[in-house]
């Protein structure tokens, strides 16, 4: 039993809108007409493509292999034929296309041969590699590779936290998952505990999901393992933020730039735990996930969707209303507006939210900041957003960093409450972007300067070496000349004259030495015949030179 809950400062309580989509059980979405599977699923690194256009693949077949420490494999979400490998738009704020495999399903949905993975009889490292090759990443949104998070880190993991808080309004996919597949989630957690060597498991669920809490508690009873506790945490956005949930459950505050493992704690989304369970116990790589379709829709609900399903093909399942003017991926607090409906569902897609002018009215015009401090009261990172706003707006980025700009988690609480309707988070994103751009520029400039300095140093060194050689040579010549002078034995000569003569002699000696050194390589060691030929050629050239002389003069 954990003794007590801790509190995180700040936070807001927006209308939850959970009821719309939480009532109905998870339904399996029908096979789409085609799938677009980005090769960059783990948000950090691009996988190496293993398939060719025209190739047929089975469901769960690896189509791209992990490369590098932060990369995870990518699998075919269903059986079918690879149509193409081409850049496709992906749901990312940049709207930039990313290399993707386009797959035409054959309608059979035939699996590869699936084998449970015996994680108990192999070292943890091997299970982590297996998870990497099953493409398991965090399903909470950030898409960080799970095998990396399960690594030993500095201190090892003492406490494993399952994040079922789901604090964003509208989203209920984790809620449904916990209600319907609690055993799988806990089995996954148990596997993770084994891999990470963690002592206890804490499951944090916001207290607005009593059924999920009950379901998970019942599953804990059934599992019968020690040190697993389901904890109801107060409903307050962003209680599901990783740092906030860790704080609430353990009292540990993880500062910017530090990871959970530094403090012996690691946090996983409940969906990720379920994915790990499917991978290990059933040999199924991560090819589908549960997501919420909600917002301005007539039939909101939760759906099990294949990764790569074009969002356009999902929408009819929940029937958006006619006045829908935009779609968000994620919730209303931190979601990203979709620039195109042809973008696919990726592993981090937990919700597609239909928006309308009534649901998300355009904000009224921005007013000046009156320093009321409401933003500071609700900031879970305990920043002073209005100060950061002044600095960001005035482009005083150094000051913004002094005021811990990068500790901002962009949860949106400040913008949510601001009476002046200032889009504070936008200012912070802008400032962070500018700082990153400048640092990159500075890094590039540093490299260029370093290279230039290295070149200067090298040139200097070469010059010195040349000078040293020359000096050595001169010294040798001088000694020779001095010896010659001594032989001549001219006592009348003044030391000055001696020196001069010595110099002249040295110069002559040098010139001679140089002449000796420079001898044509190709004309040495010639046979008499060759010498005769050379002489003949020289003769002819002399004749030609003579003949050419008058003409040359005319030309002058």
């Amino acid at each position, binding site marked *: 039993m954990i003794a007590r809950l801790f509190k995180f400062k700040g936070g807001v309580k927006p209308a939850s809108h959970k009821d719309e989509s939480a009532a109905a059980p998870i339904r399996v979405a029908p096979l789409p007409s085609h799938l677009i599977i980005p090769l960059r699923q783990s948000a950090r690194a691009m996988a190496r493509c293993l398939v060719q256009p025209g190739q047929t693949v089975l469901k769960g077949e690896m189509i791209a292999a992990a490369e590098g420490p932060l990369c995870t494999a990518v699998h075919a979400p269903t059986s079918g034929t690879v149509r193409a490998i081409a850049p496709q738009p992906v749901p990312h704020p940049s709207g930039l296309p990313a290399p993707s495999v386009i797959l035409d399903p054959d309608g059979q949905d035939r699996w590869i041969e699936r084998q449970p993975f015996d994680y108990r009889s192999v070292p943890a490292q091997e299970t982590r590699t297996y998870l990497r090759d099953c493409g398991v990443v965090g399903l909470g949104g950030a898409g960080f590779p799970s095998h990396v998070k399960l690594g030993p880190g500095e201190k090892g993991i003492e406490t494993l936290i399952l994040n079922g808080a789901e604090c964003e309004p509208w989203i209920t996919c984790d809620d449904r998952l916990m209600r319907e597949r609690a055993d799988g989630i806990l089995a996954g957690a148990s596997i993770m505990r084994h891999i990470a060597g963690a002592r206890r498991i804490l499951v944090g669920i916001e207290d607005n999901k009593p059924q999920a809490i009950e379901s998970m508690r019942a599953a804990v009873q059934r599992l019968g393992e020690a040190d697993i506790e389901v904890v109801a945490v107060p409903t307050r956005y962003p209680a599901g933020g990783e740092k906030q949930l860790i704080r609430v459950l353990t*009292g540990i505050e993880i500062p910017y730039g530090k990871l959970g493992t530094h*403090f012996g704690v690691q946090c996983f989304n409940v969906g990720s735990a379920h994915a790990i369970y499917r991978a290990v116990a059933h040999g199924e790589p991560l090819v589908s996930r549960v997501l919420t379709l909600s917002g301005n829709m007539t039939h909101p609900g939760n759906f099990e969707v294949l990764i790569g399903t074009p969002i356009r093909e999902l929408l009819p399942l929940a029937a958006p209303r006619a006045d829908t003017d935009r779609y968000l991926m*994620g919730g209303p*607090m*931190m979601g990203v507006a979709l620039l195109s409906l042809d973008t696919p569902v990726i592993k981090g897609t937990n919700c597609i939210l239909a928006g309308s002018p009534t649901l998300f009215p355009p904000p009224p015009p921005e007013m*000046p900041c009156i*320093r009321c401090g409401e933003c500071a009261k609700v900031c879970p990172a*305990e920043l002073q957003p209005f*100060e950061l706003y002044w600095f960001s707006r005035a482009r005083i980025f150094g000051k913004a960093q002094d005021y811990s700009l990068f500790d901002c988690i962009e949860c949106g609480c400040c913008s949510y409450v601001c009476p*002046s309707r200032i889009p504070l988070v936008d200012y912070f994103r802008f400032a962070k972007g500018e700082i990153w751009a400048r640092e990159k520029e500075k890094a590039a400039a540093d490299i260029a300067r370093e290279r230039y300095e290295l070149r200067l140093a090298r040139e200097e060194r070469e010059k010195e070496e040349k000078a040293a050689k020359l000096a050595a040579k001169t010294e040798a010549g001088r000694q020779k000349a001095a010896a010659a002078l001594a032989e001549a034995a001219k006592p009348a000569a003044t030391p000055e004259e001696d020196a001069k003569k010595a110099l002249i002699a040295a110069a002559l000696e040098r010139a001679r030495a140089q002449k000796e050194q420079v001898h044509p390589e190709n004309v040495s060691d010639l046979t008499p015949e060759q010498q005769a030929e050379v002489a003949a050629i020289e003769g002819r050239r002399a004749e030609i030179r003579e003949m050419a002389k008058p003409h040359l003069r005319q030309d002058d």
Partner: protein
Amino acid sequence: MNNSPYSLKPASVQSVMLRVLCALLPGIAAYVWFFGAAILVQIALTSVTALAAEAAMLALRGKPMRQFLTDGSALVTAWLIALTFPSIAPWWLTMLGTLLAIIVAKHLYGGLGQNPFNPAMVAFALMIVAYPQLMSQWPAVGAADFAAQLNAIFGPRQLDAITMATPLDALRTVLRDPEQRAAIAGLLGSHATFGNIGGKGWEWVAVGYLAGGLWLIQQRIITWHMPVAFLATLFAVAGLFTLIDATQFAPPLFHLLTGGAMLGAFFIVTDPVSGATTPKGKLIFAAGVALLTWIIRSFGAYPDGIAFAVLLMNIAAPLIDMYTQPPVFGHKRKEGEPR
């Protein structure tokens, strides 16, 4: 297309300002009850003047008129001027003060959110320096002869019947007269000007402000820091000096319930634009105002010192903020150590 967050709490500068105005109503009601309806005339006068000046400045500065004129900030300044000036001051005096507050103290410094000094306090300070006589003629308690009050405002002025020294002024007179010097506490209730605790009538106006101020805290418009620090400091320093010499210094509750103390604690010191903003900074700021107020009241040339105290602390506010930045999540104590 705007970015996340997409759902916003219904909040606006206008709603903040309107709630501040609402919170002033109990105090105003008590004011009218004890001192007549002149204050309402002054409030109308300053409101119209402030809105006109605001509109003119917005037009000059090319700012969106509708958006800024309706934000309510000019009205808050106007009402505070009306409530800090004597309610029977001549019309041109309050009007001049209001014009200075809106045009100079607010817009010449950059308008809403940019003014380093509290505009209402700038108006008060300038006027009391320029017209000390007119700024010291306060309505007598109970003398609610509205016609005479109107005459005082719009002329011809016949003040004797309707004015009275304020409690702070009366106290000053008493303290300067060695014969009357007794324990000041004994004066309360026995003197025409003094009520049970503070000034007669004024103590109830102060209670009205207190009620409105508590409601503002409940509404999350202001935090408890400033009023508590202000009132506690004033109480503590006054209490300390009463203990030292009860014949020289007024008792603490007297200080809290006279002059502009309650209005200052909840409505003037708490101006977020010109004050400190961090929790610790708010405590320091408000305590500073209270200390300076007590010093000016006890030793200065002016009967009440809140305006000067606020302006002095306004200058220090940015520095106070800079040195009182609260620690950020995760950077508080030894890393990861539970609280």
